[in-house]
């Protein structure tokens, strides 16, 4: 739960991970205000101290002046011994509250007058001034005046002023703090918050929002730069979004866009009875074009196809490239399934116009899987899968056509899916069985070999033929596993054959094309043979022409290794595919298997006879053994023998059977009495393959 919460709230997670947010405004205030306060207090104290000293000096000077002026006033009464007047004049100075006491002494030093403001009052300083008397005839020092005065008032005043300055300083600091707080909020906090808000909104929905800051200061510049960056980011995000949902080569929407489109379509719905046509297009043999003309030409080819698709559809239609050679065309409104089919066919026709690549005409071929659903169908988002089912059918059954998804296809699809999902269980529970069908000498009726044929005994679907499940095995990447499974079984069978007194019978194994690229196959073969104590020369490997073409060099290498071990190589299904004579010469082949298509009508078809004849004479020339598949009737065997085909395989001799049945069947066979068998016609068609 905790983890989920953390996941669902990345912001909170991020904040929790970061150190606690400290506001820049607060930091500024904390950095400035104490300094401001300190400076203010120091300055105030300094100013006050200087003022105090100045006042002290002023007081001293004033007292000196008082003493001087009193001395002048007192001089005459003192000299003339009007001591009452002296006292009177002296008393006048006591109006000055700072003066604590004053005294006048005559020229003998006797105190003539003395006044005290407050008995016991403290006096910190004293000033004395001589009293000089002069008239026209004389100038004498008549005495001196002494004034004791207190600085207490000054100290008290300085103290109270200091207190006042402190209070004013604190108030000023407080006011500054508030002003800073407000202005910082306006000039810093607000633009930052605006940008932060823009960032948060951008984080929330991935769009780049501008910050709403109009000031012309540095933050305004920052915000404009930020907005420019947001604009750039917005463009980049748009491009990124476009890139995420579009194919860079063709510019068409991609698979992701398709998913979104379908999600949107299923949400918006539309009229419930409208039909949506979904065409899944796959180019046939695009790999061949890439291989032949190079990847650049392949890209150009894809671009041309995309252009054609665009041109072929209407404005409301929607074209996408899912990757590789897969395209999708959606027509959001079709009247019925026929119209949809006609539309798909038109698209297919548009694709199939010839294209010039490197001055060569190439006719693109494609298959289309078409699925049609109502707009309100809850399975609308599964349209790609459904169309793919149809496409699979088209490609496997009728390449270059439009296949419409119907019930049967869906059934097939479900069966196919079930089978594919059951493959691991099949291997684990040993549901795969190897059956064997004998290969017979047409002259002597002697069994010279057995072809190992794979079967799947499925608990629900019964015995499934290889034609149905082998493509699924290949698609699920289990080819190698199955081949080793068959190889092991074949070696065990050779052991049993030898034990049953038939050591001359060899076993042929079908190699899927992918195995030819596997360099470890030869080593695997040798190890397995060694494990069962059988000679590798008792193994024949059947390959198809198609598997050679895809990787000529690698295939040739593998084949040579296998042959060096003693195994023989047979070319399967010859005559149906490329039937390349060059292949016959280039690869180290020992045997050629003539496809049963030439065999079934050979008794009546002169053409088939001619083809088989040519093949036979060619094989004879190249020193290759020929074997005919699908022998069902004795006449066919006779015809083959006449044309020089040595070996045959088919129901005429034996149906594919589990090894025990084959061994029992062999036991019943007289050494060279195969005619009886040959004469008994089989009426049961070959089970499979």
């Amino acid at each position, binding site marked *: 739960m905790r983890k989920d919460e953390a996941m669902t709230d990345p912001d909170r997670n991020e904040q929790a991970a970061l150190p606690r947010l400290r506001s820049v405004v607060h930091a500024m205030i904390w950095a400035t205000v104490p300094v401001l306060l300190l400076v203010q207090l120091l300055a105030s104290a300094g100013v006050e101290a200087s003022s105090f000293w100045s006042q002290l000096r002023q007081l001293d000077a004033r007292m000196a002046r008082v003493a001087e002026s009193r001395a002048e006033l007192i001089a005459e009464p003192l*000299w*003339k*011994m*009007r*001591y*009452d007047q002296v006292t009177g004049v002296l008393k006048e100075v006591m109006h000055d509250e700072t003066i604590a006491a004053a005294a006048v002494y*005559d*020229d*003998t030093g*006797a105190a003539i007058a003395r006044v005290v403001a407050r008995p016991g009052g403290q006096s910190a300083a004293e000033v004395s001034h001589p009293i000089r008397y002069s008239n026209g005839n004389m100038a004498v020092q008549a005495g001196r005046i002494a004034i004791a005065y207190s600085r207490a008032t000054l100290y008290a005043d300085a103290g109270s002023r200091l207190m006042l300055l402190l209070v004013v300083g604190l108030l000023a600091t407080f006011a500054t703090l508030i002003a800073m707080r407000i202005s910082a909020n306006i000039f810093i906090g607000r633009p930052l918050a605006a940008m932060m808000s823009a960032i948060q909104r951008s984080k929330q929905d991935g769009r780049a929002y501008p910050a709403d800051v109009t000031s012309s200061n540095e933050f305004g510049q920052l915000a404009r730069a930020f907005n420019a960056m947001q604009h750039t980011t917005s463009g980049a995000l748009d491009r990124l979004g476009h890139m995420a949902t579009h194919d860079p080569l063709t510019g068409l929407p991609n698979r992701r866009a398709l998913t979104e489109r379908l999600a949107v379509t299923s949400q918006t719905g539309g009229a419930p009875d409208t039909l949506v046509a979904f065409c899944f297009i796959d180019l046939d043999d695009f790999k061949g074009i890439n291989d032949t003309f190079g990847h650049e030409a392949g890209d150009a080819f894809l671009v041309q196809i995309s252009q054609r698709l665009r041109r072929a559809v209407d404005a409301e239609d929607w074209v996408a490239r899912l990757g590789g050679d897969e395209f999708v065309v959606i027509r959001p409104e079709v009247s019925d399934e026929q119209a949809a089919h006609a539309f798909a066919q038109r698209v297919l026709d548009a694709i199939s116009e010839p294209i010039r690549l490197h001055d060569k005409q190439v006719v693109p071929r494609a298959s289309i899987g078409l699925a049609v659903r109502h707009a309100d169908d809850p399975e609308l988002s599964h349209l790609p899968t459904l169309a793919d089912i149809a496409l699979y059918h088209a490609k496997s059954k009728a390449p270059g056509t439009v296949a419409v998804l119907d019930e049967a296809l869906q059934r097939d699809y479900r069966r196919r899916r079930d089978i594919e999902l059951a493959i691991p269980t099949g291997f684990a529970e040993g549901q795969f069985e190897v059956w064997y069908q004998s290969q017979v000498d047409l002259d002597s009726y002697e069994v010279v070999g057995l072809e190992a044929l794979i079967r799947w005994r499925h608990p629900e679907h019964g015995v499934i033929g290889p034609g149905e499940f082998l493509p699924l095995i290949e698609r699920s990447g289990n080819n190698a596993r199955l081949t080793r499974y068959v190889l092991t079984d074949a070696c065990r069978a050779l052991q049993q054959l030898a034990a049953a007194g038939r050591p001359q019978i060899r076993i042929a194994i079908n190699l899927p094309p992918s195995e030819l690229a596997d360099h470890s196959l030869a080593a695997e073969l040798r190890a397995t043979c060694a494990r069962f104590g059988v000679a590798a020369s008792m193994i024949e490997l059947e390959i198809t022409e198609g598997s050679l073409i895809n990787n000529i060099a690698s295939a040739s290498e593998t084949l040579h290794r296998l042959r060096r071990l003693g195994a023989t190589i047979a070319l399967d299904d010859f005559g149906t595919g490329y039937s390349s004579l060059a292949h016959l010469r280039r690869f180290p082949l020992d045997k050629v298997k003539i496809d049963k298509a030439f065999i079934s009508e050979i008794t009546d078809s002169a053409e088939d006879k001619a083809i088989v004849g040519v093949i036979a004479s060619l094989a004879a020339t190249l020193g290759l053994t020929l074997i005919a598949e699908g022998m069902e009737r004795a006449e066919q065997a006779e015809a083959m023998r006449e044309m020089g085909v040595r070996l045959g395989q088919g129901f005429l001799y034996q149906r594919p059977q589990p090894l025990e049945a084959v061994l029992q069947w062999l036991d019943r066979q007289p050494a060279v009495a195969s005619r009886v068998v040959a004469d008994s016609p089989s009426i049961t068609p070959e089970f499979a393959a």
Partner: protein
Amino acid sequence: MGAAKLTKFLRMLLAAGMVCGVFGSVGRSIAKPLDIVFVNPGKTGEVYWDMVAQTMQAAGRKLDAHVEVLTSERNYRTMQELGFGVVARPDKPDFLILSNEESAAVPILEAAEAAGVKTLLLSNTLIGEDAVRLGPPRQKLKTWLGDITTDLQTAGARMANALITAARAGKWQSADGKIHILGIGGDETTPASIARNAGLKLAVDAASDVVVDRMLFANWTQSEAERVTANYLSWAARKQIRPAGIWAGNDPMALGALRAAIAAGLVPGENIQVVGLNWSEDALREIKADRLLLTDGGHFLLGGWSVVLLRDYADGCDFAAVSPRVEVKTSAITRDNLASVGDLIKTRAFDRIDFTRFRAKAGRCGQYDFSLDALISSLPVAEGVAD
């Protein structure tokens, strides 16, 4: 001894004078009675000015002059109003006697000039700007006949010399070998005070062994003089000065100094001398008690002498023949002559003075002898001897 001879000589003169006076007064008598008004600047009870008025009236009785005294009660505005009133009278007096105290008499002088009333300034004459502006008598102001004043500077010097003589005799020098005396002036501004003080200075300057420690001012009053003297004596004690004498500008201040000296443990007359001025009764008593060395003065007689001058002027013997400004010398009363004038002053029996004897002799207009000796001579012998 010299004084006894002098007395005998004076008595002879007096006798001869009485004879002449009787004849003279009879011989020149008498054109007409005079009508004199005196605007007294002083207050009723103020000894000096009372005595001035009394001598003036006594002289008037002897010289056939009616003297009307108007008292200003020390209010100069009142004095001026009185003066203007007299000048404006339809029946104008023959002479108006004024005293220019605080220069308040000047407007009255001018008014009298306008009204044609003859004036005489007594005791205080014009000073300063007024003197410069109006010049000497009988020039700009034709009716201002002149003035009669006392020579107080000589009085001051005489007083100082008496102190110095006594101190020298008693060898009252201080440790520095000098005779230290204290001067107590009435004030520093009035001509009467300035003259006396100048006399003191004159005498002391002439005596190199004498120093005036202080010239103190006591506002003419006894109490203040007592206070400053006490201060001085205390100071002198601290300075280890032996105070030899105290010169006081008038008698009340001399009496204050006496009290202070006694309070300071001194014995005036024995180890310190004090001099005063004014011939006051108290001073005479202190002289008699041998505490006061002398009191100079007699200038209250200016009242009588002024009537003498005006009588002579009215009778055609103008005192301006010598000078319109008559300066009368004062005299000192000591233990020696106290007996002669003490009773006169004490009883204010100024009618005993025969003012007719002081009139100028024929052909010698302007020449007067207002000395103490002349005065003593004018008194009836029996009474003087008896005292």
